[in-house]
């Protein structure tokens, strides 16, 4: 964006004094957050006067309260969780984009998979079947239901069960579930074991779906807009860097995850956009309302903050 110049200078001045602002960011050990690790490694955040401490957490259960308490300055979360939190009245705002679908069915970082010998050929064949998602009432079952609806099936006809990503492959093979919605690297792992992709749940139902993003506390935006702006700028640059250097993005995975090198080689990375995708976010809000995940409407302008 064009509005980064003044803050840049300020921050650079700050850096000239040799003083970096310490911030702490809560992230999840998944492929999606490669850019922020890259940004730190490449000194992008330092350039903007930020000394970033990354802390790994398992999910929103820990990150969102930590943002509330000020323990984290920024956090990473999927869009649905943010929308729900917002509708519950938590003072949070999305400030920077996260991963986005590649938009290419069959070549995305999320797949709906069935066993090799399954008769299912498309998502509609899963009506009445058991499908594993990692978290119920969240982004993954939302997009699946939407996909089902778009393909002409009954949105509520799948029996969705919660199975953690690492356990999905085994449950698919043992026949406890009929299909799984896996993300990388588990999608690659399952495919290499013979699972067959019948749908791309991020690429197909919503155009250019942005799955997740970085958020902060509304207080922080009010009290320290310069800091937030610096973060936004650095984050966007990091996303861009990851987008431009896919090999570097894959390489950095070994720093915070334990994915086998062969799998890293094969897995499909998401795209890392520079701008928050308002349309797809709007769609998520609508779908959340339709499926009853939220009861209070969420105003997209109050959800997204794009810098001062």
């Amino acid at each position, binding site marked *: 964006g064009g509005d980064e110049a003044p803050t840049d200078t300020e921050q650079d001045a700050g850096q000239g004094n040799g003083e970096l602002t310490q911030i702490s960011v809560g992230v999840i050990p998944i492929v999606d957050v490669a850019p922020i690790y890259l940004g730190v490694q490449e000194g992008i955040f330092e350039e903007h006067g930020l000394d970033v401490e990354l802390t790994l957490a398992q999910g929103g259960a820990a990150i969102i309260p930590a943002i509330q308490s000020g323990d984290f300055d920024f956090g990473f979360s999927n869009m649905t969780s943010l929308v729900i939190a917002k509708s519950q*009245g938590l003072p949070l705002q999305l400030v920077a984009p996260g991963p986005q679908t590649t938009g290419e069915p069959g070549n995305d970082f999320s797949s709906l998979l069935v066993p090799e010998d399954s008769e299912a050929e498309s998502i509609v064949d899963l009506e009445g079947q058991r499908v594993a998602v990692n978290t119920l009432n969240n982004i993954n079952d939302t997009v699946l239901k939407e996909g089902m609806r778009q393909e002409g099936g009954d949105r509520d006809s799948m029996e*969705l069960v919660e199975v*953690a990503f690492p356990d999905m492959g085994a449950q698919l093979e043992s026949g406890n579930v009929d299909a799984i919605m896996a993300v990388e690297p588990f999608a690659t792992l399952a495919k290499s074991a013979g699972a067959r992709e019948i749908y791309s749940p991020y690429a197909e139902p919503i155009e250019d779906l942005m799955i997740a993003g970085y958020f902060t506390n509304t207080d922080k935006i009010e009290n320290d807009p310069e800091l937030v702006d610096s973060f936004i700028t650095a984050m966007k640059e990091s996303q861009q860097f990851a987008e431009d250097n896919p090999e570097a993005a894959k390489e950095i995975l070994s720093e915070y995850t334990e994915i086998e090198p062969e799998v890293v080689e094969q897995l499909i990375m998401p795209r890392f956009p520079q701008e928050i995708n308002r349309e797809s976010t709007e769609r998520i809000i609508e779908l959340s309302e339709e499926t009853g995940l939220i009861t209070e409407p969420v105003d997209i302008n109050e959800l997204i903050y794009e810098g001062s």
Partner: protein
Amino acid sequence: MRFVKDFLYIIGLPALLLIGWVVWSAQSDSFFVPTWEQMTNAFANTWTWTRMTTDVFPSVGRLVVGILVSIILGIVVGLLVGSFRWLRQLMEPTMEFFRAVPPVVLIPVFMLLIGIGDDMKIAVIVLGAVWPILLNTIEGVRSMDEVLSDTSHTYRVAGAARVRYLILPSAMPQIMAGIRQSLSIALILMVISEMFASSAGLGYTIIQFQRSFAIPEMWSGIVVLGLIGVIMSFIFQIVERKVLAWYHGQREMENAG
């Protein structure tokens, strides 16, 4: 009169704590500390009969089965392990191994071996709840009075009769102490088991509330958990009074002095 007194003892401290919370929450604006009003609303709207039949009762059913299995398994294995030193030595490190591994990381193994149905959830409850019963039974068997044990030997009270008339009753106070501990652990594991491969249940509901930041509802779920705990504990105390009538009588007799 005595009934009233007992009742006051039961509700006294909870009432004080309740008042403390009402006062505190009224002037706290933390999102995670609901007010009296939010809580009562959450309670009324959440714990409807439908919710009871779809989420609470099935969970409690698994809980009860899990506890019963734990009791039987704990006592049977405990009697064996407590009676044979070699068996105790053989098993102890392995038992400690399993005791030290968090159920959360063992659940995937259970899912592999048992699947994702009720069996798995019950197995998780047993996995956690069996230890206090098992260990207490072992201790109970081990700390048997020597004179009593000698007496039984000389009267040739052996085999099944020894278990029935000597070992089991003499270990019973400790076994009961173990069961009491297990009850609350089982309840905790009921929640944890529903964090995996679930789509209904009390624990699942609470986790969902937590994830969707429905904080008053989450707290109301925790209160329901606590209430189940209290009910179980009181049922247990009634059973214990019956089973250990002799023990308490003896205690009272000694304490009367």
